[in-house]
Protein backbone atom coordinates (compact mmCIF):
# COMPACT_ATOMS: atom_id res chain seq x y z
CA UNK A 1 0.00 0.00 0.00
CA UNK A 2 1.46 3.34 -1.07
CA UNK A 3 0.56 5.38 1.99
CA UNK A 4 1.62 8.83 3.10
CA UNK A 5 2.26 7.69 6.68
CA UNK A 6 6.04 8.05 6.42
CA UNK A 7 5.71 11.73 5.48
CA UNK A 8 3.84 12.95 8.56
CA UNK A 9 5.88 15.54 10.50
CA UNK A 10 8.42 15.65 7.66
CA UNK A 11 9.11 18.62 5.42
CA UNK A 12 7.60 17.81 2.03
CA UNK A 13 7.35 19.34 -1.43
CA UNK A 14 3.91 19.27 -3.05
CA UNK A 15 3.51 19.72 -6.78
CA UNK A 16 0.00 20.63 -7.82
CA UNK A 17 -1.94 20.17 -11.04
CA UNK A 18 -1.61 23.86 -11.97
CA UNK A 19 2.19 23.60 -11.63
CA UNK A 20 2.55 25.25 -8.24
CA UNK A 21 5.19 24.00 -5.82
CA UNK A 22 4.49 24.23 -2.08
CA UNK A 23 6.81 23.18 0.73
CA UNK A 24 5.63 22.60 4.27
CA UNK A 25 5.55 20.18 7.15
CA UNK A 26 2.91 17.51 6.62
CA UNK A 27 0.54 17.75 9.56
CA UNK A 28 -1.94 15.18 8.32
CA UNK A 29 -3.60 13.45 5.41
CA UNK A 30 -6.58 11.20 4.70
CA UNK A 31 -7.51 8.32 2.41
CA UNK A 32 -8.34 10.71 -0.45
CA UNK A 33 -4.79 12.09 -0.15
CA UNK A 34 -6.08 15.48 1.04
CA UNK A 35 -3.09 16.96 2.85
CA UNK A 36 -2.68 19.54 5.62
CA UNK A 37 0.63 21.41 5.61
CA UNK A 38 1.87 23.58 8.44
CA UNK A 39 4.38 26.42 8.05
CA UNK A 40 3.96 26.19 4.28
CA UNK A 41 5.47 28.38 1.58
CA UNK A 42 4.86 28.53 -2.13
CA UNK A 43 8.02 28.50 -4.26
CA UNK A 44 7.61 30.59 -7.37
CA UNK A 45 10.12 29.74 -10.10
CA UNK A 46 11.01 32.02 -12.97
CA UNK A 47 13.79 32.37 -15.54
CA UNK A 48 14.23 36.11 -14.96
CA UNK A 49 14.91 36.03 -11.22
CA UNK A 50 15.63 33.64 -8.37
CA UNK A 51 13.01 31.59 -6.58
CA UNK A 52 10.55 33.64 -4.57
CA UNK A 53 9.09 32.10 -1.41
CA UNK A 54 5.60 33.24 -0.46
CA UNK A 55 4.52 32.28 3.08
CA UNK A 56 1.13 30.56 3.17
CA UNK A 57 0.99 29.29 6.76
CA UNK A 58 -1.38 26.41 7.50
CA UNK A 59 -2.73 25.06 4.25
CA UNK A 60 -5.12 22.32 3.23
CA UNK A 61 -4.61 20.93 -0.25
CA UNK A 62 -7.36 18.85 -1.82
CA UNK A 63 -6.12 15.43 -2.90
CA UNK A 64 -7.39 15.72 -6.45
CA UNK A 65 -5.16 18.79 -7.01
CA UNK A 66 -1.98 16.93 -6.00
CA UNK A 67 0.45 15.58 -8.58
CA UNK A 68 3.33 14.56 -6.39
CA UNK A 69 4.48 14.61 -2.78
CA UNK A 70 8.22 14.43 -2.22
CA UNK A 71 10.11 14.10 1.05
CA UNK A 72 12.69 16.90 1.32
CA UNK A 73 16.20 16.17 2.51
CA UNK A 74 16.25 19.17 4.87
CA UNK A 75 20.03 19.51 5.07
CA UNK A 76 20.33 19.41 1.30
CA UNK A 77 17.38 21.74 0.84
CA UNK A 78 18.83 24.31 3.23
CA UNK A 79 22.25 24.18 1.54
CA UNK A 80 20.67 25.39 -1.71
CA UNK A 81 20.57 29.15 -2.17
CA UNK A 82 17.15 29.56 -3.77
CA UNK A 83 17.93 33.08 -4.99
CA UNK A 84 20.49 31.64 -7.42
CA UNK A 85 18.08 29.14 -8.98
CA UNK A 86 16.49 30.12 -12.24
CA UNK A 87 14.11 27.68 -13.85
CA UNK A 88 10.89 27.58 -15.73
CA UNK A 89 7.85 26.85 -13.59
CA UNK A 90 6.65 23.25 -13.61
CA UNK A 91 4.15 22.85 -16.45
CA UNK A 92 0.51 22.36 -15.49
CA UNK A 93 -1.18 19.01 -16.05
CA UNK A 94 -2.79 18.57 -19.44
CA UNK A 95 -4.91 15.52 -20.18
Amino acid at each position, binding site marked *: *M*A*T*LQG*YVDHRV*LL*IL*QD*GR*AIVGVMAGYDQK*SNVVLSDSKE*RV*YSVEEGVEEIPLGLYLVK*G*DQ*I*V*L*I*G*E*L*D*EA*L*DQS*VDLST*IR*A*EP*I*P*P*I*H*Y
Partner: protein
Amino acid sequence: MLIFSVFKTLTDQKVTVELKNDLSITGVLKSVDQFLNIRLDKIEVFDEARHPHMMAVKNCFIRGSVVRYVQLPAEHVDTQLLEDATRREAAAQNKR
Protein backbone atom coordinates in the same frame (compact mmCIF):
# COMPACT_ATOMS: atom_id res chain seq x y z
CA MET B 1 -7.01 -5.17 -10.64
CA LEU B 2 -4.70 -7.11 -12.97
CA ILE B 3 -2.37 -4.16 -13.49
CA PHE B 4 -2.29 -3.57 -9.73
CA SER B 5 -1.00 -7.14 -9.36
CA VAL B 6 1.56 -6.61 -12.11
CA PHE B 7 2.89 -3.53 -10.30
CA LYS B 8 3.06 -5.46 -7.03
CA THR B 9 5.38 -8.01 -8.65
CA LEU B 10 7.63 -5.14 -9.76
CA THR B 11 8.38 -3.68 -6.32
CA ASP B 12 12.08 -2.94 -5.78
CA GLN B 13 12.63 -2.66 -9.53
CA LYS B 14 13.76 0.50 -11.29
CA VAL B 15 10.98 2.15 -13.28
CA THR B 16 10.48 5.44 -15.09
CA VAL B 17 7.20 7.28 -14.56
CA GLU B 18 6.15 9.90 -17.08
CA LEU B 19 3.63 12.35 -15.70
CA LYS B 20 0.92 14.35 -17.43
CA ASN B 21 2.95 17.52 -16.78
CA ASP B 22 5.73 16.04 -18.97
CA LEU B 23 8.03 15.34 -16.00
CA SER B 24 9.85 11.99 -16.18
CA ILE B 25 10.97 10.48 -12.90
CA THR B 26 13.12 7.37 -12.57
CA GLY B 27 13.30 5.55 -9.26
CA VAL B 28 12.98 2.31 -7.36
CA LEU B 29 9.34 1.25 -7.05
CA LYS B 30 8.60 0.90 -3.33
CA SER B 31 4.84 0.39 -3.33
CA VAL B 32 1.61 0.75 -5.26
CA ASP B 33 -1.99 0.94 -4.11
CA GLN B 34 -5.42 0.31 -5.62
CA PHE B 35 -5.50 3.76 -7.27
CA LEU B 36 -2.07 3.02 -8.83
CA ASN B 37 -0.56 5.73 -6.65
CA ILE B 38 3.18 5.03 -6.74
CA ARG B 39 5.92 5.41 -4.13
CA LEU B 40 9.39 5.84 -5.62
CA ASP B 41 12.74 5.81 -3.85
CA LYS B 42 16.12 7.19 -4.98
CA ILE B 43 14.46 9.34 -7.61
CA GLU B 44 16.11 11.12 -10.51
CA VAL B 45 14.29 13.65 -12.65
CA PHE B 46 14.94 13.53 -16.38
CA ASP B 47 16.67 16.74 -17.55
CA GLU B 48 17.53 17.92 -14.03
CA ALA B 49 19.06 21.17 -15.35
CA ARG B 50 15.65 22.25 -16.61
CA HIS B 51 13.78 20.92 -13.58
CA PRO B 52 15.77 21.76 -10.44
CA HIS B 53 12.55 21.89 -8.39
CA MET B 54 13.05 18.43 -6.93
CA MET B 55 16.80 18.58 -6.23
CA ALA B 56 16.38 17.92 -2.52
CA VAL B 57 13.71 15.23 -2.96
CA LYS B 58 14.93 11.66 -2.56
CA ASN B 59 11.66 9.73 -2.44
CA CYS B 60 8.17 10.63 -3.50
CA PHE B 61 4.51 9.69 -3.73
CA ILE B 62 2.96 10.11 -7.17
CA ARG B 63 -0.80 10.32 -7.55
CA GLY B 64 -2.05 7.57 -9.89
CA SER B 65 -4.35 9.93 -11.77
CA VAL B 66 -1.46 12.05 -13.10
CA VAL B 67 0.63 9.18 -14.50
CA ARG B 68 0.79 9.03 -18.29
CA TYR B 69 3.22 6.14 -18.76
CA VAL B 70 5.28 3.79 -16.63
CA GLN B 71 8.33 2.31 -18.33
CA LEU B 72 8.86 -1.19 -16.93
CA PRO B 73 12.01 -3.31 -16.91
CA ALA B 74 11.23 -5.84 -19.69
CA GLU B 75 13.31 -8.58 -18.10
CA HIS B 76 11.12 -8.54 -14.99
CA VAL B 77 7.77 -8.80 -16.77
CA ASP B 78 6.61 -12.29 -17.68
CA THR B 79 4.61 -11.42 -20.80
CA GLN B 80 3.41 -15.02 -21.24
CA LEU B 81 1.96 -15.00 -17.73
CA LEU B 82 0.44 -11.58 -18.32
CA GLU B 83 -1.17 -12.76 -21.57
CA ASP B 84 -2.67 -15.80 -19.83
CA ALA B 85 -3.95 -13.70 -16.94
CA THR B 86 -5.52 -11.21 -19.37
CA ARG B 87 -7.32 -14.01 -21.23
CA ARG B 88 -8.53 -15.51 -17.94
CA GLU B 89 -9.89 -12.14 -16.82
CA ALA B 90 -11.62 -11.59 -20.17
CA ALA B 91 -13.15 -15.08 -20.04
CA ALA B 92 -14.42 -14.46 -16.51
CA GLN B 93 -15.98 -11.20 -17.62
CA ASN B 94 -17.73 -12.82 -20.61
CA LYS B 95 -19.28 -15.46 -18.36
CA ARG B 96 -20.96 -12.78 -16.21
